[in-house]
């Protein structure tokens, strides 16, 4: 599978009118597996949302060349989803068929078989008719991964996929992430657990509203860079004057 790259050209993003990411340039290489790491409020989720077009790019450009937007799959933070929503597991997973069925075409038996297979692949056989409100956090995350499996996208963006998830589920889902990487897909994941990042992710973008380091994980996640990221994050004031680089 030939996956496209995601390229940032001096990108600045604002979230609810507050600057969240400043002057980011660089590339998620085709077929790469990259972690985005940084303190709370560092702009990690904002960056992911900007790639899918949910947040406007204030300055600069994000290039995702030669790709249908539906070829990007996005896994949201669980906190963004209403778990009381009256929906069965199979309906949620079937959203992953959107590229094939769109908003109007009928979901036929073959489609449903694929959805059931995707559920089995994440260890949720026979969960099809369960209401999503009855699932544990780990089970819900498995369902969202099954939806991503069905999307069969060349770029996969995961926003905190292992936050508040039990270790068994994390290990199972990490296997899926590695499988996607092995298939040549471009995978980007916002992560907090540095141990997982060091063990599983070949590349890391360390973000603290500005890029602190971007490259092989061992080189990016040094003690100095992590300290710098924390200091930069703590030093950022909401009422800061206009960025000198932007004003120059």
């Amino acid at each position, binding site marked *: 599978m030939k996956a496209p790259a995601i390229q940032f050209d001096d990108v600045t993003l604002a979230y609810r009118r507050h600057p969240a990411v400043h002057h980011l340039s660089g590339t998620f290489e085709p077929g790469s597996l990259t972690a985005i790491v940084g303190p709370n409020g560092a702009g990690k989720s904002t960056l992911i949302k900007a790639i899918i077009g949910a947040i406007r790019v204030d300055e600069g450009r994000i290039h995702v060349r030669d790709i249908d937007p*539906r070829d990007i799959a996005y896994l*949201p933070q669980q906190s963004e989803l209403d778990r009381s929503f009256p929906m069965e597991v199979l309906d949620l997973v079937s959203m992953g068929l959107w*590229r094939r069925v769109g908003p109007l075409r009928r979901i036929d038996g073959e489609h449903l078989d694929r959805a059931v297979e995707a559920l089995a692949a994440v260890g949720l056989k026979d969960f099809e008719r369960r209401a999503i409100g009855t699932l544990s956090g780990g089970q819900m995350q498995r369902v969202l991964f099954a939806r991503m499996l069905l999307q069969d996208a060349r770029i996969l963006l995961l926003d905190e996929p292992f936050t508040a998830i039990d270790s068994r589920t994390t290990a199972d889902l990490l296997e899926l992430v590695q499988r996607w990487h092995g298939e040549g897909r471009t995978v980007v994941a916002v992560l907090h657990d540095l141990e997982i990042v060091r063990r599983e992710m070949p590349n890391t973008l360390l973000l603290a509203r500005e890029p602190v380091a971007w490259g092989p994980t061992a080189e990016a996640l040094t003690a100095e860079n992590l300290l710098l990221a924390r200091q930069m994050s703590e030093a950022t004031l909401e009422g800061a004057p206009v960025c000198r680089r932007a004003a120059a």
Partner: protein
Amino acid sequence: MSLYELVVEPFVSYGFMRRALIGCVALSLGSVPLGVLLIIRRMSLMGDAMAHAILPGAAVAFLFAGLSLWTMTIGGVVAGLTVALLAGLVSRMTPLREDASFAAFYLISLGLGVLLVSTRGSNVDIMHVLFGTVLALDDGSILLIAIVTSLTINVLAIIYRLLVAECFNPDFLRNVGGAGRAVHLVFLTLVVLNLVSGFQALGTLMVVGIMMLPAAAARFWSETIPGQFIVGVVIGIGSSLAGLLVSYHAHLPSSPAIILGAGTAYAISVLVGPRGSFLSQALHLPHLQR
């Protein structure tokens, strides 16, 4: 009194009862699914706000054309959509959330509406607009309700998957190229159309009841949206039937009787429905038993 005399005879004997029942059944078929979706979208009070918002449009039409169904309908739709668009615009351009900007605009709209009606209409006219005349539905009113209900069911079928995706996971819909804002606007238009078509039958205030009460009750009976549509519509139709019969036999006003019928169904659902009611929660706590 036999069961026939109690339930069937009023509808066999009187055309106005048959018309009222047909109007309310049609209203339930279109409005209740919208109510279910409003609740799921956490916009339960939006129906109420919109019902108030259509008042000045209907009032302006009334000032120009008197009690004309079609003119008041157009006026109501224009006023409702204007409030929806302005509230949406303010919430997108400012930090004020959509529910707050809706509240602001509908209050302004309601004030304007009452002022306009009071400059020329009598109290009887205002009561007509606010509380409806379900026992005096003419052909035009029934036709309007039928058209709006047909339109609602068909449009909902077309945009259903988009609506669900937009509500549950808007970023997903944006990602796969769905037009979230357009879907939201179409949905609000359907809400306005149903409220406007219903105000002739039940009145602007009561029509929200037939939209929201069966929908709220349905949440206690089903864990899927299609399931809630079906349960809600059945409750809506049942409440209409019960309300009309109570109003007929006890000589009570019909619109409040229908709404109180739906209210009774809601109360029963909260108490004994199988999904999350007081009873179901009590039965699912075996560790408290000894």
